[in-house]
């Protein structure tokens, strides 16, 4: 019982290139303090430049490392069974020309698609008819509806993405933040399955 160590691997950690990764960097250990201290300092791997920017450490590798250190230890694993190590090279600079190009692309694309949508649903005719119903007069260009409509369109989108009211209204994540999270989750799931040596086994071990 004295040799029981609880291991909880972290989901995702960031390291610098050439950093030495110790067990304490990627997992939380609980147990006899003396034992845990010693284990935590164990060097697991050294990040080299040849490594890709993602390294996966599986639980079995960690267990092997711990048992190599001290074969009497009993390990109880809780939580994720692998850690994604993300190697952060120097901070990527934002490429401004690319950013501006994407910005213009989104701007023009959004403008044209909304025009297509309006034609598709005969928005002009609906607005003309609405104008007639409410005022009783004909107007081929009911700008009194259409200009507030246009600004309302932008307001509605901002409302949906919720970055004006975030602080004031609540702490709940906006749909975009949830979407970003889901995307990251999918990517993580992919690298866990595909970059983890322990979870793939091919014919002839190649």
């Amino acid at each position, binding site marked *: 019982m004295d040799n029981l160590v609880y291991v909880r691997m972290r989901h995702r950690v960031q390291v610098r290139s050439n950093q030495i990764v110790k067990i304490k960097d990627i997992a939380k250990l609980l147990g006899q303090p003396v034992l845990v201290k010693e284990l935590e300092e164990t060097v697991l791997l050294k990040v080299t430049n040849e490594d890709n920017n993602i390294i996966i450490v599986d639980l079995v590798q960690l267990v092997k490392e711990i048992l190599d250190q001290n074969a009497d230890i009993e390990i109880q694993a809780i939580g994720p069974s692998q850690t994604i190590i993300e190697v952060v090279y120097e901070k990527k600079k934002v490429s401004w020309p690319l*950013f501006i190009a*994407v910005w213009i692309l989104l701007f023009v694309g959004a403008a044209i698609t909304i025009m297509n949508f309006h034609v598709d649903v005969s928005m002009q005719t609906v607005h003309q008819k609405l104008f007639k119903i409410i*005022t009783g007069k004909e107007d081929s260009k009911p700008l009194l509806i259409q200009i507030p409509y246009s600004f309302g369109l932008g307001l*509605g989108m901002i*409302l*949906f993405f919720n970055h004006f009211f975030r602080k004031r209204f609540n702490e709940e994540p906006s749909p*975009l933040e949830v979407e970003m999270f889901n*995307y990251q989750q999918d990517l993580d799931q992919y690298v866990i399955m595909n970059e983890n040596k322990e979870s793939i086994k091919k014919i002839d071990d190649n």
Partner: protein
Amino acid sequence: MTIKIIFTVFVGFAGGLAVGAGFVAFLTVLKVIPRLTQLTKTMKMIQHYEWAIVLGVITGAWLGLQNNILSLNKAFLVPIGLADGIFNGLLAAALTEVLNVFPLISKRIGIQEKIVYLIMAIVFGKIAGSLFQWIYFVDI
């Protein structure tokens, strides 16, 4: 004659049922109402929002199919236009295609902190496109 009338009523009713169900399904998929209740913290009032949608649809259908003239002041048009726009904006923003594009683009060009600027590009694009269409494009 009676059979014809009954049949016509039945066809009209069936058509309305299908369109109404489709409309609600559309709103549900886009999660616009949950989003609004989340923003305003009025989850308890959701039943009233349902009624707002139902009554709005009925009013709109009726006004659209009849030729009633309300003869109101022109000033009424401004809030109606604004509400129309906000609702459409919510729908446009809620389309999952739009939501799925942002995480991808921001990761590709490495600007996760500046994603707000990309959203603003879409928002301004929508406003500009809409204004351009109503003021200039419809005359061509």
